[in-house]
Every structure is written in structure tokens, then in C-alpha cells.
């Protein structure tokens, strides 16, 4: 723990298909936490619990932060913490304000998930694949020529549109 910091939180992205896309570092980090929260579908939580230990469903950012002040706390979220999770962003903002050390472990974002599912490359054929957008269902995507991965973090789904 860094000097002057009061507690620690590890925010882990589980990817868009957690049973395949959870990273080793996320599993290892969550295993080492005193308290663990999981903001994902119940099936995902059940799968994760078998691998890292008991999980709680977070009520809000304040609850997660209160646990982090007491000891090393993990928060697992669907997708990527800073791209697809409002809760993760709230926790990170509150942690910064309260002097709680926060670490983000990146997850597979809807863009990477959609690219892999379609096996379409970014940057190999610029004419076809000049860009990608990930946006929440209902909020996007912007009008544009490149593909979009629309995600619904609550449902744990990614939909690709062109």
C-alpha cells in the first residue's frame, strides 16, 4: 500500500464472455482479496465464486469503498472497468477522492470481443476496418461507417452493427 493511502481496491474487468475472457491476473488478484464484489449476471458470479472464493453483490460504490478502507478489496465487473462499467468508474472516482489506492486490471472490451467473434482485423485492411466504436445500447453508436459493438453491461451482451 502506498504511503498516505487508506485502503486498497482492485477493480477487475472480466471481459464480455467471462467464462472465456477472464484474465489470469484478475483471477489471481481476486483470490488474494479479503472482500470481493462482483457486478455481473448471477451465472457469472457463480462461475467466478468457484475460482476465487465468496463474492458479494455490490449495493453501490459507497459499500465497495467502505470495504476497501478495511482491507484489500476486489471488484469484478463485466467487460472493461473504465469502458463498460459505471459502477467501476464511480468506485474509482470515490477512491481517488478518499485517498484509497485503486488498481484497474483491464478486461476484454466489447470492441475486442466483437472483432474476435467476427475474426475481423483492425488495421489490416484500412478500407474495410478503419475503426470501431463501443457504445452502450441506447446511447450509441454515432452515425459512421465503421462497425460498432453495442453493449448492454446489465445483460452481459455485445451486439455488432455496421
Amino acid at each position: 500500500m502506498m504511503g498516505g493511502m487508506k485502503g486498497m481496491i482492485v477493480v477487475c474487468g472480466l471481459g464480455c464472455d467471462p467464462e472465456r475472457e477472464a484474465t489470469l491476473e484478475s483471477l489471481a488478484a481476486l483470490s488474494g482479496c479479503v472482500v470481493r464484489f462482483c457486478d455481473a449476471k448471477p451465472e457469472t458470479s457463480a462461475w467466478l465464486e468457484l475460482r476465487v472464493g465468496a463474492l458479494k453483490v455490490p449495493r453501490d460504490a459507497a459499500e465497495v469503498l467502505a470495504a476497501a478502507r478495511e482491507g484489500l478489496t476486489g471488484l469484478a465487473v463485466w467487460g472493461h472497468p473504465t469502458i463498460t462499467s459505471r459502477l467501476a468508474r464511480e468506485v474509482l472516482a470515490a477512491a481517488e477522492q478518499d485517498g484509497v489506492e485503486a488498481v484497474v486490471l483491464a478486461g476484454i472490451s466489447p470492441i475486442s470481443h466483437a472483432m474476435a467473434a467476427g475474426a475481423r482485423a483492425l488495421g489490416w485492411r484500412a478500407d474495410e476496418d478503419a475503426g470501431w466504436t463501443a457504445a452502450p445500447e441506447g446511447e450509441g453508436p454515432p452515425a459512421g461507417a465503421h462497425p460498432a459493438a453495442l453493449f448492454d453491461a446489465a445483460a452481459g451482451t455485445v451486439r455488432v452493427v455496421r
Partner: protein
Amino acid sequence: MSDRGERLLQRGRPAEACAAFTAAAKKDPSNPSLWLRVADAAFLAGRAANAARAAARAHALGGGDDTLRRALQAHLLAGDEASARRALKGRAGAEAAFWLAVLACRAARWAEARRLFLEAAAADPERLAERAGLFAAWAGHRAAGVARRSEARGISIVGLGWKRPRQATVGGLDALAGCRKLVAVANTLDDATRDLLCLFRAEVSAVAFRGSEAEAAAAARRALRAAAAGPAGTVTRGNPLVYGRFAARLVALARAKGLPVRVLPGVSSYEELAGVDRPGPEAPLGLELRNSHDAGTPGARAMAVFTPYSRSKGALPHRPALWFSSEGLARAPITRVSAAEAASMLARGGAPGILYYASSAKMPVPRLSFKADARLELIGAIELVSGARAARFVDPKDEYAAAARKLLKPFSGHPAVRLQAAFPAAFDFVERCELAHRLTPALEADAARFLPESSVTRAGGRAAVDAWFEALRDLSRASDFAAFFRSRRAALDKRAGKFREAAAAAKVLEDLEAYAGRPFDGTYEVRVSPYFDAERMLNAVWPSGGATRALVTVIGADAGGRDPEYYLRERLPGALWHQLAHGYFDASVEAARPALAGRHDGRATPSFGSWEQCVKEYVVIAVTARLLARSAGEAAQERFLNNGDADLFPAMPALIERLREFEGDRARWPRLAAFLPRLFEAFPAKA
């Protein structure tokens, strides 16, 4: 060390490097480092057994944990578990426990493996906490049960993440565990990755790939050969499909051979970067990525992904990918910059935070694109099957048309075909495109994109049009037209290439941006179809919520065939400027409605149905004429203006004069929008 060996290795010539290192090692046989380099080069050259012997020799000379690790890696990558066990016999300590756990993994004794990894991590946390902790997580995952079965054949392309093996995914490793052969790209083969590959009882080999197209193709062919006898896997850094020349080649090759191919994504550089950034809770969720050849687009706020491709296109150099490491990234402040600022930073040759990122789902996508459109191709294919009788329909009579006809032939009795065949003659194919290209990609009517009443009437009324749309949706689903379109898209887009190149040569976007004094922040899609009449053009301007509107033009793939020189140099750029100017200035004309109400152009009845619409046309035609004059000469302006419509625009000469005044004093008028009130004074005031 052998400098020659290092140079050869860097040049991708591992066999010669191996010979050079061996020669050096024989001159200095008690130097374990040299024997380790022999092992490295031998493995890359496909001589795993030689690599194992060299590594064992290095360990016999060195005797420490580092050389033990290298020797065990070499034995296991060569598939020689017996030698690995002999090397471990009688050895105690954390490193030995770690390798016993690796052997347990290879034998699928997951619980034992997890326990041994955790013991190793606890015994020597400084050296082993990370790798043993990660592998304990993997073993724990396997011990908890994996529902998905391994693939019987095909190739799995697995991304190990930006920080490997920390960001290796459980699904990626599950896929590798089901493979008989594994092919690793040589530049991934650091110690940590070698440890990881040792977890699997597969035959492991390496392919050299340093970035060139030829190397990518050769490496992909080798990987594909590995998949001939059974399930195979390959590992890459980051996400296989980002900067993914090798993976993209491999996907294409596998598909061409009908071999199942799966891509297991890894955490990429942009995801790592997003993990370091801290957007506030109020910022929109999402992420947008662009290729670096788009990074110079003014007004964009996005993260650039730099690729070898864009380098070859003369865009930004590939350097940024080399500028940050995981450690550097963690220390570096994230600076949000516009794309233009980033391009400028690159041009200056160095700055932190060159990869840039903004999570803004609301960001418009500035872009002028030329491409095929599934909606137009669907109704074209239906027209082929329904007898191709619609006026202004072009049957390309080529292999593509034959394939489309073959796809839909089983559906010749489908309502979509029958309805299209029965449409009134006045509802010609161009009119059909006019309605179809306004549908959503899912072929639904879009409330924001009105259907022109005249076209709907000619089709037989709204009920007839709605029935046609419903039938289109059904036929698209039933025939899986989307898959057909995807498979043909690259070839169709290629037909749009000459238009794309002409627009680039005429600097359509750049010239208009310079003339208007502000960046183009809307979208403009030029949809090109082989079925569309080469003499016609459809245009649409839709509000997009931003400052500039969404623009669409439809043209035929053979447009300009009669006089390509004129078409590509004047006609097409003029048409694009016309549409773009609508996007730029229509809103300004609407805002000036009160001032314009007191002016006229001398005609008793304004053209285009209303004075406001008439002024919009005046503005865009005058701007287009001046851009043509500046790009192709004053004669081009005259040709453009004297096309038979001159009587519709009696005030045009006065507007052109005012624009010359604007051009002559850009210091006073940096933006054309600010000059518009003065431009409108060219219309006489009503008495």
C-alpha cells in the same frame, strides 16, 4: 556473445544464427550464456532437441535456478518430459516446486498443480509470486471444471494480452490445452511465454514474423500446416487482430481452406491504456478506435491505433506502438488531445500520451467513405431473379451477378421477388434504391429518414411499400443475404476504389474544409452499386444531431465510363462538394430565414418549391463552382454553371462575385459561415 549471431537472429535467420552461436560457444565452452543463445536460435530454427541439449549444457555449467528454468523450458517445449523429470530429480526449492506443478498441469492433475504453484509462490515470493500465482489461478480454473469441449479440428488464434502472461485469458488457455500442435510467433517467446507454453502437452514450434506482408503470409502458411493433422493453436501478443497482419492472414487462409478458425481475444494496448485513464462517472461509456490514417481528421477525439498498413499509406509512422511499455504507461500521464493535436505531436517527433483515448459514444465520425451497401445489393439481386425488367436497372452480367442470382434462385416465389416484379413501371430501379437506402441496416423504416412522397406514390402507396420492406426483411433472413454480402464486400468495395482515389486526388474534403474555415465533423457515405444506373445519382441529407449533417450519395459502379477524365476530375468532385456544402450550410440558411424573407432573385416563383430551399441550392452551387475553379480551373467552373440550369439561378453571377471577395480577404473572413450574411446581400432587396 556473438554479434554475428545476434544480427542474424534479428534478421530472422535463426538457422545461421544457431551456427554462429555454436561456433562462439565452442570457442568459449564454459560460458552458459552462449549455450543459452544456441538454445534460443535452435528452437526458432525448428530444432527443439538441439535447443534442449544446449540449454541442458548451460544448466550443467551454471547450475542456478535461472539455467534450471531455461533447461526445463527447452526439454518441455521439445516434448521431452523424461529429461525434465531427470533434471528435477533430487532438487528441492521453490523453482523445482514450480516445475513439478507445471508437470502436474501437463498431466491434468489440476488440484495438485494449484497446491504446488501456491507453495512455490509462498516459498520464494520475490522470484515466483507472480508467475506461480498466475498459474495457480489457471490450475484452479481447470480444477473447478471447464464445460466447453475442445475443438476436434481447426486452428485457435490466441492473444496473450498486452502484459503476458498476466493477461492471458482462461478461454485462450483452454483452447491451447486442446491443441496437438502450438505455433508461437517468435517475438512472443520471452521467458514468461515459454513458461506458459510449457503448461501444455502439445508439440511447440516457432515462426519468425517481424512485420512484413511476406513474412506474415509465410508464417500463416506454417501455422496452417500445423493444423493439418489435428487441432492447432497459435499465440500472439496483445489482441491477435489488432496490428494483426499475421492473424488476419491466418484467418483468411484458414477460411479459404475451409478450416475452422477461432480467435480468442487478448487484452490489447488500447484496453490497457483505457485501464490507466480515469474517465469520471458522468463521462459517456464506450470507446472509439481509429486507424492512424484517420488520426489527422480535424475535430476527432479518439484513440489512435497505429498500424503497419497506415504507414505504407503514407499516414502517421508506426513509432507510437514502440513508445510505451506497460511500465511506462503506468507512469505516464494520460493526455486527452484532439486528433489534429496528436498528428502535430507526432510530426514534432515526440510527446507523451501519443496513443490517445476518449470514451465518447456521442462522438461523430468524420469520414468520407466509398463502399458497397447491403440494402442496394439485396434489391438488385432480387431484381435479377424477378426478371430484371425494372427501368434503370443494370444487370452487370458478371460472376457477382451470377452468384447473387444463384443465391436467390430458390426464393423465386418469395413475396419480395413477386412484389418487386409487380411494381408499376414508373417506380423504376433508381426510385426503389431511393427508398431502400433510407432503411436501417435491419431493413426497417427509419423515422429520422423520411421516405420521399413522390417515390412512395409511384410504388403504389405506403401500404405497398411497407409490404415490400417486410418481404425484404424476410428474404434477407431466409437467404442469409448478410453472409453473402460479407463474403462479396471486399470485391464490391474494390469497384468503388476509382471514386475514392478521385476524391482523394481532388482533395475534396481538405479543400472544402479550407474554404469553409472549419473541419467537416459529419459523415458522408458514397454508396456504390453495380446495379445502379451509371447516369443517375441519388443524394440525401439527414440531420445527425451535430453541427454537420449526415450525407449519402448513391452512384453506379460504372458511373463516368463514357468520359472518365471529365467525370473523375470535375463531375464527381463537384457532386461531392455539392452534397458536402449542403451539410455545411443548410442550417445557416435556415437560421437566416428572417433576413432572407426580404430578398429575392428576380424570379416570380422561386425554384425548388420554396425560397429557402432555393437559397440553399444557390449557396452550395456557388461554393461548388468556386471549388471547381480553384481545383480544375475557371473553365471547369463555367462548364459546371452552364449546364442548362442557368435560368433557375439568375442571381448566381452576383453570388460568385461575392465569393471572390470572400476568397480575397480570408484574414477578415476566416469562416465562410460568418460571411454568409454578406453573401445574401447579393440577392436584391424586395421593393
